[in-house]
């Protein structure tokens, strides 16, 4: 008897259970769909200028890159009426200046980041961090004019490619500091503690444990920073005027770069010059793209094994 009454009573004492788990409420489904539409819309909107730029540079400048002379010859002796010559002088200049900029800014940037993450306590660290923030916000034209004031006005030197790399270094240091800082912060503190607990000194821990763990991220950050700096134009216009011929000397004379080549030829109304503008633009995009790819590729070569 008791089992019977219990069975009869039970359902009424327990709260009603929703057994139907199918179907989403209309409102939730609508919100979900609306959010999807907005996100896709924003994505496509952002893609429009990107695709537009890529397609028009490819269409208008693509044929320039197909000829071998584009990669091997300079514009020496070629006027804007004439078809021919190449962008080798500008490509070489851009790569050379980027390399020198990297050599100067990577050690300073990485060491500053190590100081800020591993050692920086108290006032000095705050000041350094604040200065890096300010430097991040310095427009490239201001950096260029600062170097001009220092290099040309104060020291009385000529405008040489090396002055350009100084201005670029000023722009690149903060990006390297910030990206390296982020990567070092990602290294778990447990690894540092494990190393200290083995009686390994702090500097050794940083060199042998922290830096290898963060290595691929640091390299990626450096290459992305470099890619950005290669497109900077203001320092080039102010400190590194265009020249049509090849140059190798960083401390003497002029050196062409892709941005200055674009800037020079865009003022011409003649078709051969305009073709060269598009060609140079596409080359610059390509270089930056290759650097980005290289950054990702090196990121895969991480020493962190799993």
């Amino acid at each position, binding site marked *: 008897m008791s089992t019977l009454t219990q069975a009869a009573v039970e359902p009424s004492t327990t709260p009603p259970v929703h057994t139907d788990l199918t179907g989403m409420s209309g409102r939730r489904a609508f919100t979900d769909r609306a959010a999807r539409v907005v996100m896709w819309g924003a994505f496509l909107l952002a893609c429009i200028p990107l695709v537009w730029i890529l397609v028009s540079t490819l269409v208008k400048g693509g044929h320039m890159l197909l000829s071998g002379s584009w990669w091997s010859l300079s514009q020496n002796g070629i006027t804007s009426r004439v078809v021919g010559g190449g962008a080798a002088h500008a490509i070489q200049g851009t790569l050379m200046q980027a390399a020198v900029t990297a050599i100067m800014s990577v050690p300073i940037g990485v060491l500053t980041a190590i100081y800020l993450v591993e050692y920086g*306590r108290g006032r000095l660290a705050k000041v350094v961090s604040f200065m890096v923030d300010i430097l991040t916000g310095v427009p490239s034209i201001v950096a260029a004019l600062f170097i001009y004031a220092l290099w040309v006005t104060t020291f009385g030197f000529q405008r040489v490619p090396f002055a350009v790399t100084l201005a670029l270094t000023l722009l690149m240091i903060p990006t390297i500091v910030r990206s390296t800082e982020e990567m070092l912060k990602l290294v*778990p503190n*447990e*690894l*540092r*503690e*494990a*190393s*200290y*607990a*083995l*009686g*390994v*000194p702090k500097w*050794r*821990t940083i060199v*042998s*444990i922290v830096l*290898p*763990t963060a290595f691929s991220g640091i390299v990626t950050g450096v290459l992305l920073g470099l890619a950005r700096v290669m497109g900077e134009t203001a320092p080039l216009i102010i400190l590194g005027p265009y020249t049509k011929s090849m140059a190798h000397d960083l401390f003497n004379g002029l050196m062409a770069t892709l941005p200055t080549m674009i800037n020079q030829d865009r003022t011409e109304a003649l078709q051969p010059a305009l073709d060269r503008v598009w060609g140079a633009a596409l080359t610059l995009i390509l270089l930056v793209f290759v650097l980005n790819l290289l950054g990702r590729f090196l990121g895969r070569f991480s*020493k*962190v*094994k*799993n």
Partner: protein
Amino acid sequence: MAKRIDVHDLDIFYGDFKAVEGVSMTVEPRSVTAFIGPSGCGKSTVLRTLNRMHEVIPGGRVSGKVLLDDQDLYAPSMDPVAVRRTVGMVFQRPNPFPTMSIKDNVAAGLRLNGVKDKKKVDEVVESSLKGANLWNEVKDRLDKPGAGLSGGQQQRLCIARAIAVSPQVLLMDEPCSALDPISTLAIEDLINELKARYTIVIVTHNMQQAARVSDQTAFFNLKATGQPGRLVEVGATQKIFSNPDEQATEDYISGRFG
């Protein structure tokens, strides 16, 4: 080669906050001492002062004395790096170096302290892995990444790494809390073996574990919320678990609070 630890009136601070107050106790060589107590009572903090790892945290400082045999670890002339070579530590979560192979992980303490002799390093790697009961499982894949091992194996790898620098004392901060029961058993067996050669201090939340592995147990508790933690009672494990002097210890052990 195992050493005795004497703690006298130890106060531990994080900046201005006093986290632990007035700890005095002795840890005998070649014995296992377990620290038990509720979360946040300062067990791990005390443990970390025994090899000067506490001061790695910004603002971390102590007052009082920690004697290793007769040397005061906090005397001004002591080098914290040398102290940590003598007093090894195993952490709560297994933390093998992700950039290194199994072998390199074990050899890290030696290599990073400048030992170059390859033969010696190989010998130490083998003996340490054997000492950590891991050799048979990994001897054919010493060049594989240490992070590829299972959690329990990783923790034994960390123990091998810690004993490779031949410390006198081994500190373990909840070494089994992230492991399954079988791995836990393996670590507990290992602790029993290591006891013959090292002085071991282990923090644990698991009272059965404390009862199983330790000779001496120390019970820590907070005076009250927001007050510093303190050492309530320390004594032979058997006594603490059967007939403690303090009511608070009995309440905690019998599960009446905590």
